[in-house]
C-alpha cells in the first residue's frame, strides 16, 4: 500500500470507501448521515478519507485501545467518529496536514515484512508504534509525524471515553449526580469519572 493511497478522495466516494474497508456492519447511521446529509461538492471540504487511510485508523484504534474485559476503541465505533471529525469538522488545510501526517505514520508503523509478503498487509508493527508513541509523548518531538500522532491519539481517546460504553463501562458517568461530595474513598467510585 503506497502513501499516495491515503490522499483525499471526494466525499461522495467516502461512504462507499468506508463500506469497502470496514464492512457494512461498521457503517453506523451516524456516519451515513455525516457523509450523505450535506449536498455534495459544495466546497473543498467535501472530501473524506481513502480506504487505505480508513484501514490504518481502524488498525491503530485497535492497537491503542484494544478490547479487554471492556469494549475496545473499534468496538465502540471510534474509527467512524474520527473519519467523521476529519471529514466534517476539520477545515481543508487541517485535513491536508492531518492526512499527510498519517502517510508518515503509515510508513513508520506498517509491518513492512508482512506487506512485502503480500499477506496480512494490515498488521501494525507494534514495536514501531511504541517507539513513535515514546518520541511523541515522552521526548516531545515536533515533526509532522509526531504532531499528527499526538492529535490522532487524542482523537482516539476522545472517541472512546465519550462513547456510551467508554464512559459507562470502562469509566463511570452520571448524567445528573444530584449532589457533590468532596471527599469520598476512591474505592467507593472505583474508576475515574468520564466527565468533569
Amino acid at each position, binding site marked *: 500500500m503506497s502513501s499516495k493511497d491515503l490522499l483525499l478522495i471526494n466525499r461522495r466516494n467516502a461512504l462507499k470507501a468506508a463500506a469497502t474497508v470496514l464492512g457494512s456492519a461498521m457503517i453506523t447511521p*451516524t456516519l451515513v448521515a*455525516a457523509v450523505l446529509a450535506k449536498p455534495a461538492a459544495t466546497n473543498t*471540504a467535501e472530501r473524506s478519507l481513502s480506504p487505505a487511510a480508513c484501514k490504518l485508523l481502524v488498525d491503530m484504534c485497535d*492497537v*491503542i*485501545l*484494544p478490547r*479487554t474485559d*471492556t469494549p475496545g476503541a473499534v468496538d465502540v465505533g471510534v474509527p467512524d*467518529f474520527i473519519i*467523521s*471529525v476529519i471529514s*466534517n*469538522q*476539520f*477545515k481543508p488545510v*487541517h485535513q491536508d496536514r492531518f492526512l499527510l501526517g498519517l502517510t508518515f505514520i503509515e510508513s513508520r508503523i506498517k509491518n513492512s515484512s508482512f506487506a512485502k509478503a503480500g499477506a496480512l498487509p494490515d498488521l501494525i508493527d*507494534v514495536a514501531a*508504534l*511504541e517507539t513513535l*508513541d*515514546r518520541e511523541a*509523548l*515522552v521526548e516531545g518531538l515536533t515533526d509532522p509525524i509526531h504532531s499528527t500522532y*499526538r492529535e490522532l*491519539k*487524542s482523537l482516539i*481517546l*476522545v*472517541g472512546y*471515553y*465519550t*462513547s*456510551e460504553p467508554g*464512559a459507562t463501562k*470502562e*469509566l463511570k*458517568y*452520571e*448524567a*445528573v*449526580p*444530584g*449532589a*457533590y*461530595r*468532596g*471527599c*469520598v*474513598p*476512591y*474505592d*467507593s*467510585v472505583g*474508576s*475515574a*469519572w*468520564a*466527565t*468533569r
Partner: protein
Amino acid sequence: MDIPVYDAIVIGSGMSGGWAAKELTEKNFKTLVIERGPETVHGKDYPHDFSNPWDLEHRGIMDEKLLERDYFVQRRCFGMNEYNRSHFVNDRLNPYIEEKPFNWIRGYHTGGRSVMWGRQSYRLSNLDFEANKRDGHGTDWPIRYEDLSQWYDYVEDFVGVSGSTEHIEHLPDGVFLPPMEMNCAEKAIKQRLEKQYADRKLIIGRIANLTKPKPHHIELGRGPCQFRNQCSRGCSFGAYFSSLTATLPAAKRTGNLSMAHNSIVKEILYDTETGRASGVRVIDSETLQEREYRARIIFLCASTIGSAQILLNSKSTAFPNGLANSSGVVGHYLTDHLMVGGATGVLPGYEDQYYTGRRANGIYIPRFVNMGDNNQDYLRGFGYQGAASRSNWGGQKATPGIGVDLKKKLHDPGPWKFTIIGFGEMLPRYDNCITLDEERRDPYGLPLVKINVSWSDNESKMRESIISNAVDMLVKSGLEDVKPVEWDTTPGTAIHEMGTARMGLDAKTSVLNGFNQCHDVPNLFVTDGAAMASSTCHSPSLTYMAMTARAVDYAVRQDKANLL
C-alpha cells in the same frame, strides 16, 4: 398608527435589564422590555441541557469552518463549546471594529449573557469604592458600601447565592445559601496556605446556584443544583440564576410586563421642551421596519458596550455628541478584568480520596496586595479563582503508552491538580474607549462600534505579580511540579466590560449620579456595567443587580414626587 405608551421602558433583558423589569413591574409600572435578539424560552431553548457526550455526533469537537465563518470572535472565549454555542452571537452577522484586538463576547436573546454567565458573586467593599479617590485614577465613586449593602442583601436573597461567612472586611459576607463543599485537596491546601500567610484566605466560591432553594425560589419554578457542571448550556432545573429563570418570570407574574423581541434600539428619543427622554426608536431585525415606543422612565441595560453605543447614536441638537454626553466621557474608560494567568501544581498524596458529582464552582483567594502593610509598585489588586481536581482521560491525553497498559492507566484518575487564575483590576483610562464609525454600518444600517482598548504599564506589572504570587503560594503550600500559567490575554476575554457611562459626583466628568441617573437626562437610568466608575477585581454582575434594584427604588420614588 398610535405609538404604544408604557410607564417604563427597559432596554435589554440580561442581568441588569431583568432586574429593572422585575423591580419596575413589582412596583406596578407597566413596563416594556426591549430585546434585540429572538425570544429564548427557559428549558425549550437549551438544546443540550440533557445531552450526554455520545449524543453529539462529534462529541463536542466543533466545525472549524463554521467557527472561522461565524464565530471568529466568540471562539476566543474560554467558555464557548458545542453544547452552548447557540447562546453566543454569530460574529458574521454582528460585526464591530477592533482598532486594537478586543474580544467582545455576546449573547443576543432573552436573558442575554445571564444565560451563560460564570455566576461568581462577590460584594464590593470600600476598598473598592474608595480606590479612585485614593490614587486619583478615575472619578470618585459617588456611593460607598453603606449605600449598597442593603441592596446586596435584597438581591442575594432573591438570586440565591451559595457561600460561606468569612468575616473578611474587604469581601463582605452576604445573605448566603449553604456553601458548596471543598474537596480533600482544597481543604488541605487551605490549611497550609492560611498557615503560611497570615494575610491570606482560601474560601469556597460564592456562586449564584441554589444549594438549598428557599420557598420563593421554588415558587418561581426553580430547583436545587444537580451538580452537573454544565450551567452555560441552560439548566431546566432553574438551579442557577438568570433572567430566564428568575427575574423575568417574577416580572411576568405581575401582569405588568410586555416584551418586544427582535427589536434593535436605534436611538433613545429626546424631547428638548421637557428636557427628558421621551421614548425609544427600534429597528425590527426581521422586517427592518422602524417602530417607536414611549414611556416616562427609561432604563438602559443593553450591556456596557451596547448601552454606550445607543447613547452615542442618540443624537439631537441638544446632544450632538450623543444623549447624556455633555461630559464627553460616554464610551470612554472601558475596562475589563486582567485574566492573564496564575499557577498550577500537584498536591502529593490523597490518592485514596475522590469526589462524586461535578461542582460548578471553585475556590477563591481574596485580594491581599496593596492593603495594610502590603505595598506594590503598581496600583489596585487582584483575587484568584481556582480549584483542585483529579484529571480523567481528558486531562491526561498526553499519557505515553499504548494498548492494555494505556487503558489501565486511564482507568484511574490522575493526581490532585490545583490551579489558580488571577482576576485583576484594570485602571480606568480615557484612551480605552468605544466610538462609532459613521462610514461603516451593520446589517441594520447602524454605525459600527469601534473598540480601542489596551493594557497599560500598571496591568503589565500586576500581571507579573499575579503569576509570581501564585507560584509562591503553591510552592509554600507544599505543591509539587508547580508551573506558572502565563496567558497573553486580549482585553475583553474576561467578559467583564465596564465603565463606558461612569458614575461620578461631577456632571462635567461623569455620565451618571450615584443613583445611576443621567446627570443630563433625569428620567434616563443606566444600570449595567457601563455605570462602573472602576472595575475593581471582583466579578461584577451582583453589583449591577444591586445597583439596578436601588436605582428603580429611587426612580419610582422620584416619579411619585413628580421629580422626573
